[in-house]
């Protein structure tokens, strides 16, 4: 019998700790598959991969990605990746970060990694909430969205409107390719995979900073079932955070 489908080699056999219906698992798989394919295609030498896990629900990503890995301080993954990539420029480097990590405590690090045109890829998982700490408001939390620190819903007058990271970073000259994706449908999953792989390819080609924002669910802290969470994402997040390419210097 021939094998038609198997687990990608870039994931370890460790079982994910993510909640049922959480999108982190799908996104992990897409990242790992993309890297694995680049290796299979002979574009990247196996072993020349370094990933940086954040502080957030994906803090244990170093256990899942089957390559050399770092676990960074909260928000500092882009600085860690900068040091790692500068030290081993021939490797493929990526950070994997949540929205609290990247859009709140780590804004300086991500802005300046983009500004310097650092040659690594950031996978930005935006679930509009602080998942790991139990559902507090993030800078990306939608107006009116209830969280444990915005119990009456996010009040724009009090704490601002949700920040659109991809649009913001696109304005930075050093950013090379930025796209916002989602994994709510099969079609979108395929698009996300394409975007991630393209970003990695740009890195291999020595281009500048790339970021793929992936809208993601947090059924646990949104208080919804996995299916309801997908619907909520479609009806609320996608309209505010429009999908698509925000910047692609390679296509210009």
């Amino acid at each position, binding site marked *: 019998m021939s094998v038609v489908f198997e687990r990608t080699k870039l994931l370890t056999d460790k079982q994910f700790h993510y909640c049922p219906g959480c999108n982190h698992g799908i996104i992990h798989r897409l990242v790992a598959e993309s890297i694995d394919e680049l290796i299979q295609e002979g574009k990247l030498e196996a072993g020349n991969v370094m990933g940086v896990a954040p502080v957030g629900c994906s803090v244990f990503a170093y256990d899942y990605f089957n390559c050399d*890995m770092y676990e960074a301080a909260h928000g500092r993954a882009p600085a*860690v990746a900068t*040091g*790692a990539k*500068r*030290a081993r420029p021939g490797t493929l480097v990526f950070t994997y970060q949540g929205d609290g990590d990247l859009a709140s405590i780590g804004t300086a690090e991500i802005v300046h990694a983009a500004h310097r045109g650092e040659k690594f890829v950031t996978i930005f998982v935006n679930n509009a909430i602080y998942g790991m700490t139990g559902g507090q408001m993030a800078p990306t939390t939608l107006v009116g969205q209830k969280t444990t620190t915005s119990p009456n819903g996010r009040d724009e007058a009090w704490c601002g409107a949700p920040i659109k990271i991809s649009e913001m970073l696109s304005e930075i000259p050093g950013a090379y390719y930025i796209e916002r994706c989602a994994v709510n449908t099969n079609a979108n999953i395929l698009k996300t995979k394409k975007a991630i792989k393209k970003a990695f390819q740009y890195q291999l080609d020595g281009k500048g900073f790339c970021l793929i924002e992936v809208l993601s669910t947090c059924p646990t802290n949104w208080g919804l079932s996995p299916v309801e969470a997908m619907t909520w994402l479609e009806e609320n997040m996608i309209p505010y955070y429009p999908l698509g390419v925000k910047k692609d210097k390679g296509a210009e």
Partner: protein
Amino acid sequence: MALTLMKGSEAIAEAAIRAGARFFFGYPITPQTEIPEYMSARMPEVGGCFLQAESEVAAINMVYGAAGTGARVITSSSSPGVSLKQEGISYCAGAQLPCVILNVMRGGPGLGNIQASQADYFQGVKGGGNGDYHLLTYAPSSVQEAIDIMMFAFEKAEKYRMPVLFLADGIIAQMMEPVEMPEMVEYKVDPEKKPWACTGWKPGDDPAKRGVINSIYIDTKRGVINSIYIDTESLSIHNEHLQAIYKEAKANEQIWENYKTEDAEFIITAFGTVARIAKTAIDELREQGVKVGLFRPISVWPFPYDAMRETICRDQVKGVLDVEVNEGQMLEDVKLGLEGAKPVRFFGHLGSQFPTTDEIKSEILAMKEGK
């Protein structure tokens, strides 16, 4: 070998390069800005990397990233900047990353001033960041000594897998002295010697090739640079492992200087530049027939408690004068080590002015007269 007249900051930077450092990440701050400036010109000449970070927070995390590949990495800053680095330093300590951190101390708290100070002794020696950790911490008292320490700093950092901190007061960085610069050390990352580092693991690699496994308690053969141990058991194993390393460092890495202590009736304890001022005071007092000596810790962590006791706990010693440019920080270690065996007097300045030889002399004379 010929002596060259060099400014402290530049000499320290050059020594780091000679010791094999090829990565520098930093952010400008007085009184150490000459270090990044020097590095920005010198690193490219030796095929190294100088990168001006957006903040000290980022700089130390870049150190974490580069040191994780096994490279020799250094960062430097001054007090307020070193405060910002504490988070990253704690992570480096937790992840057991060898690296060198320079603190060219200035006055504090807060923005303080830009003059030399010794007020970060507590921060450097007693922790700074969160968690049960220590740094190998050296307090050079001359430019030459800073160079000499730099030449073994990376080796120590690698041997114990812990960061090394230089506690240098601003004067060391700002003054010019004739120095002897050592030869360039050739350093190359050797994955066999640094089996924990991110040096290019791939699925299917023979784990035995990595030499020893990543650590005693992580079952992965990949490079995993990490400080989280989520369950109580593994964290306690990790922390016990760290403490065992610190114990070994305490046993082997204490360095100090005794100056004219053999017949001394009064002992001055001081570190860094203050110790040099004390030596002049000691020479002048001895001309007047007052027998004074100096005990100077060079490693302030591990603190040379035993050597200090041996020097001071002798019948002829009547008292100890601790002199610092702070409110008496090393004083706590001096008292801790002596356990009340001898009276300890303190003299210090708080605003970055360094004590004069006359001030030190009059303190000793007052002690002699029993005042």
